C-alpha cells in the first residue's frame, strides 16, 4: 500500500471517528495484519481502549478480523480495510444519490445504515418505529420548495411498514446488501479456509496426481468463492415471498411487508438478516454519471439524457463487485431495448431539434451518395425498417407524413419518439468511444448494451491526457499521445511526428519523465555505455502512470484535509463559541459582526476545500475503482 494512501486513510478516520480510531488504524496500516497485543504496543494505547476502538472499527467495516481456530490456541488477527476507509469520503454523495432517486425517507435509511455500519433489520425497524414524534420544521428553514419528494422528506418516518418498504426497495436495488460472516474476514482468510476444507475433502477421494489435484482444488476454491458472492447477485436475496413463509420459523421472524411492486409478488424481509450499505453499487452509479457527462461533452445534452436513461435501466441489475480489474457490475450482461427507454424517458425532452440530419445541410454532397452504404449505421437502418429511415431522412417533412401512415396520433407519436430515441442511440454507438453497442436481434427498434470496462479504460486515458495538458501544456500532451500510439520512440522520431524541433520537446520529455508519466529505456550503441552513445527510448506505461498519479492524488487529498484542520484551528475560538448550545441558532444576536463574517468565511473555505477534495476523489475512482 502506498505511503500516501496510508496517510490519507489515517487522516480520514481521524476526521470522521476521532483520534483513537485513527491511531489504531495507523498502527494497522503501517504494520499490516496484527494481533490485539501488537496493536496495543504499536498504538501505545491501553488494551481496554484498543478493544473498544476495534469494536467501533469492525462495526463500521473499516477493520476486518480473522480467528485461526486450529492448533488449539485461538489467535485473532486484525487487518485494515483501507478501501472501506476511503469510502468515508462518499457518504454525502451516497445519501444524496438515494435522496434524488427514492426521496429523503429512503435517503434517511441509507444515512442511518452508514452511521450504524451494519444492523439487524429487526433492530433497525424497531428503533425507527418507536419514533412518532412529529417533526416541527416540516418546511425547510429557508422556505424553499425543491421538489415534492424533498419537501415531504422532512416529515418523520413513522410506521414500520414504511421503513420496511424503503428497505425492500433499497435491497432489491442492491443499495443495501445482507452482511454475512465472511464479509467480516479478509478474503484471503476466507479463501484459505475454503482451500483447507476442499483439500481435506479431496484427500479421501483422489490422492493420485498431486499436480492435478492442485488444479482441481484451485477450481473448487474459485467456485466456492464465486458462490459466496453470487448470493448477493440474486435480486431478492434476503427477502421472502410473503405467501410461502415456512411456518416453523415464522414466529421468530419480524415481519414487514409491502406491496411495493404491483406486478410482482409481495415481499417481506427476513428480520434476522443484517444489512449494510453496498458501496460498490454506488461506485457503479458514480461511474455511470461520469459516462453521461462524457457523452454530453462529446455529443450533446439531449443525447446524454437518453444515455442516462439507458444506464438507469442497466443500473437496476448492477450489484457491483470490486475486483482487481476494477468494478464488475455482476449479474448477467443485460440488454436495454429502445422501447424500455421510450417508456421511461421524460416526454419534455426535445429529441428532434437536437440532431441535424445530414442531407438537409449538405456540404459533403460529393461523397454523401458514394459512401452512404459503407457505414455500419446505414446498414442497420436499411435492414428491417427502411421505411422508417426514409421518414427520418426527410427530417422537416415528417410531420406531413401523418396522413399517409393512417395511425392514431398517440401511436404515431410513440413511433416517432422511438425513432428519435434510436437516432440518439445511433449517435452514441457511432461515437469513437462507442458509448453503446447495438445488439443484433429481433428486438423492436433495437437493443443496446454498454461495455463499461472498455469505456472506463478510454475515460482513464482521456483523464490522464487532460491532467498532462493541465499540468504540462499542449505540447506535452501531443508527445504523450504519440508515444502511447506508437510505442517506444526516441527524441528524433518524436520530433518528426510531432512537427516540433527536438530542442523544443526535450524539456517537456524531461518533466514528463520526472513526474512518472513517461519512462525511458536506454539502449547503448556501444559496449562502453557512454551516455552520448546511447539511444533513449521514451515509452508510456499506463499502469505505472496510474500508480504515480494515484499517489499524487492521495497526497493532494491529505493536504486538503490538513488544510481544513489548519483553517479550523485558526478559527478555533470562534468555532467553539458558535458551537455552544446557547449560541447555536442565535448567531445573529450573540456573535459580533466580525465573528459572523469570519464564520461565513470559514464555512466557505471549508466548502471550497471539501468540494475540491471530491473533485480529486472523482479522479481517484476513475483510476482505481472503475
Amino acid at each position, binding site marked *: 500500500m502506498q505511503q500516501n494512501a496510508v*496517510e490519507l486513510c489515517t487522516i480520514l478516520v481521524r476526521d470522521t471517528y476521532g483520534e483513537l480510531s485513527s491511531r489504531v488504524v495507523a498502527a494497522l496500516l503501517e504494520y499490516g495484519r496484527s494481533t490485539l497485543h501488537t496493536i496495543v504496543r504499536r498504538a501505545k494505547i491501553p488494551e481496554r481502549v484498543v478493544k473498544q476502538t476495534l469494536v467501533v472499527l469492525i462495526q463500521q467495516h473499516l477493520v476486518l478480523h480473522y480467528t485461526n481456530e486450529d492448533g488449539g490456541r485461538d489467535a485473532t488477527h486484525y487487518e485494515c480495510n483501507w478501501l472501506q476507509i476511503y469510502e468515508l469520503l462518499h457518504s454525502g454523495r451516497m445519501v444524496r444519490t438515494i435522496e434524488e432517486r427514492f426521496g429523503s425517507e429512503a435517503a434517511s435509511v441509507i444515512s442511518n445504515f452508514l452511521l450504524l455500519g451494519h444492523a439487524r433489520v429487526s433492530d433497525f425497524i424497531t428503533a425507527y418505529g418507536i419514533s412518532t414524534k412529529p417533526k416541527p420544521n416540516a418546511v425547510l428553514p429557508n422556505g424553499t420548495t425543491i421538489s415534492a419528494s424533498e419537501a415531504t422528506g422532512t416529515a418523520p418516518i413513522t410506521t414500520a411498514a414504511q421503513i420496511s418498504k424503503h428497505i425492500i426497495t433499497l435491497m432489491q436495488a442492491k443499495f443495501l446488501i445482507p452482511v454475512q460472516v465472511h464479509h467480516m474476514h479478509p478474503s484471503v482468510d476466507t479463501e484459505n479456509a475454503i482451500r483447507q476444507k476442499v483439500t481435506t475433502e479431496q484427500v479421501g477421494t483422489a490422492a493420485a496426481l498431486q499436480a492435478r489435484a492442485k488444479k482441481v482444488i484451485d477450481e473448487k476454491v474459485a467456485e466456492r468463492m464465486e458462490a459466496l458472492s453470487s448470493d448477493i447477485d440474486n435480486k431478492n436475496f434476503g427477502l421472502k415471498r410473503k405467501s410461502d413463509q415456512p411456518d416453523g420459523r415464522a414466529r421468530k421472524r419480524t415481519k414487514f411487508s409491502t406491496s411495493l411492486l404491483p406486478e410482482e409478488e409481495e415481499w417481506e424481509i427476513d428480520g434476522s438478516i443484517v444489512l449494510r450499505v453496498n458501496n460498490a453499487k454506488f461506485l457503479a452509479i458514480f461511474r455511470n454519471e461520469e459516462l453521461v*457527462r462524457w457523452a*454530453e*461533452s*462529446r*455529443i*450533446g445534452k439531449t443525447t446524454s439524457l437518453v444515455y442516462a436513461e439507458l444506464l438507469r435501466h442497466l443500473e437496476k441489475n448492477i450489484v457491483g463487485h470490486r475486483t482487481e480489474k476494477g468494478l464488475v457490475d455482476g449479474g448477467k450482461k443485460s440488454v436495454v431495448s429502445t422501447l424500455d427507454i421510450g417508456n421511461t424517458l421524460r416526454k419534455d425532452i426535445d429529441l428532434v*431539434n*437536437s*440532431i*441535424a*440530419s*445530414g442531407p438537409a445541410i449538405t*456540404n*459533403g*454532397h*460529393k*461523397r*454523401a451518395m458514394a*459512401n*452512404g452504404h459503407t457505414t455500419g449505421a*446505414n446498414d442497420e437502418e436499411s435492414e428491417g425498417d427502411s421505411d422508417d429511415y426514409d421518414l*427520418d431522412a426527410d427530417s422537416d417533412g415528417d410531420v406531413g407524413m401523418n396522413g399517409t401512415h393512417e395511425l392514431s396520433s398517440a401511436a404515431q407519436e410513440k413511433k416517432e419518439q422511438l425513432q428519435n430515441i434510436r*437516432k440518439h442511440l*445511433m*449517435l452514441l*454507438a*457511432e461515437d*469513437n468511444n462507442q458509448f453503446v453497442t447495438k445488439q443484433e436481434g429481433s428486438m423492436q427498434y433495437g437493443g443496446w448494451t454498454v461495455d463499461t470496462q472498455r469505456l472506463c479504460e478510454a475515460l482513464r486515458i482521456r483523464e490522464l*491526457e*487532460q*491532467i498532462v*495538458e*493541465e499540468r504540462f501544456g499542449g505540447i506535452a*500532451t*501531443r508527445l504523450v*499521445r*504519440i508515444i502511447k500510439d506508437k510505442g517506444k520512440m526516441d527524441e528524433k522520431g518524436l*520530433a518528426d*511526428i*510531432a*512537427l*516540433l*524541433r527536438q530542442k523544443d520537446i526535450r524539456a517537456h520529455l524531461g518533466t514528463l519523465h520526472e513526474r512518472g508519466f513517461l519512462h525511458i529505456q536506454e539502449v547503448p550503441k556501444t559496449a562502453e555505455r557512454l551516455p552520448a552513445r546511447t539511444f533513449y527510448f521514451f515509452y508510456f506505461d499506463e499502469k505505472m502512470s496510474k500508480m504515480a498519479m494515484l499517489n*499524487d*492524488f492521495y*497526497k*493532494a487529498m*491529505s*493536504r*486538503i484535509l*490538513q*488544510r481544513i484542520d*489548519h483553517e479550523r484551528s485558526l478559527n478555533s475560538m470562534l468555532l467553539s463559541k458558535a458551537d455552544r448550545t446557547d449560541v447555536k441558532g442565535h448567531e445573529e444576536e450573540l456573535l459580533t459582526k466580525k465573528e459572523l463574517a469570519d464564520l461565513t468565511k470559514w464555512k466557505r473555505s471549508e466548502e*471550497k*476545500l471539501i468540494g475540491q477534495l471530491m*473533485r*480529486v476523489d*472523482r*479522479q481517484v475512482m476513475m483510476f482505481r475503482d472503475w
Partner: protein
Amino acid sequence: MSDLQGLARRIHEACGSNLQKLYTQEDLIPFAPNGDSEDLLLAINVLLQRGYIKILKQGDAFVYQFLSKDTVDRTRNLTPDEALVYQHIESSAREGVWSKILKTRTNLHPTVLTRCLKTLENHRYIKSIKSVKFPTRKIYMLWDLTPTIEVTGGPWFTDAELDADFINALLVAIERFVTSRSFPKQRPGSTSIIPFEAGYTGYPTLSDITQWVKNSNLTEVELSEADIKALLEVLIYDGKLERVIGGTAYKAVRRVEGAVKQGVTEAPCGRCPVFDLCNEDGPINAANCVYFEKWLAEI
C-alpha cells in the same frame, strides 16, 4: 570541317534548349545531313571535346546530355584544381557533397581546397547549403540547383530549421476548416452545438482538406496529401480532431466550455512546484502553505 562545326552548332542549338532532356543516338539521327551518320558522329565528337555534351549511361544504352554555353565557359576558365572540385560537386547533383568527402575524393590539400571552394562560390558557380539531417556539416552543390527534400527536410523547413510558425498557422487553419464542416450551422436562438445524425457522411476527407488548402492561398509552398496528413495527425494527437467513417474522414472534437471537469490540477497541489518536498512534519506543509492561502483567498 567547317561544315562539321556548323553541324555541331546546329545540333547544340536545337537540343541545348532543353538541358534536362537526355538524348539517345536515335534522337540525334535527324540532324545528320543526308542521313550520313558518319558526319553526325564526328560532330558529336567535336561537342564532346569542347565539353558541350556529356555521355551518360542509361541502362545499357549511352545517352547524351547537353550543357549550356555558360556552363562550358565557366569550366573553361577554371584552374585544373578548381575544375576538379567543380566536377565532384557537380556530380553530387541535388544531394550536395560534404566538404570532408570532397577532400578525400579530390585529395587536395585543405588550404587548396578551401581556396578553390571560395573562388567557385565567389563566381556563383556553387553554393553551400544546410542539411536537415546534418545541420553542422558544410555541404556544397551547384549554384542553380535546388536541394532535394532529404536535404531541406521538406515543406516544414526553412533553412534547415523547422518552421514552427508556418506549421502552427497551417494547423490552426485546418482545424478551423474541419470544425466548420463538423457541425451543422446553429439554429437561430440556440446556443448549443448539436450533432449531425449518425451515418452522416459530409465530414471532410484527406483529399477534401488538401484541396481546400491548395485553393486557400494559405501558402505558396506546394503541399502534398502526405504533408496534409502529417498535419492532421498532429491535430489528432492534440485531441482537436478525430477520424470518423472508418478513418476515411475527419471531424472536430466537440469542445464545450466547462464540460471538462478538472480535479487535482485546479487544487494548489496539482501544479505545486514543491509538492515533492511537502510533508506534514516538514518545513513545507499544508498549514504554512502560501499557495493554499492565496487559493482560499479567492472565494
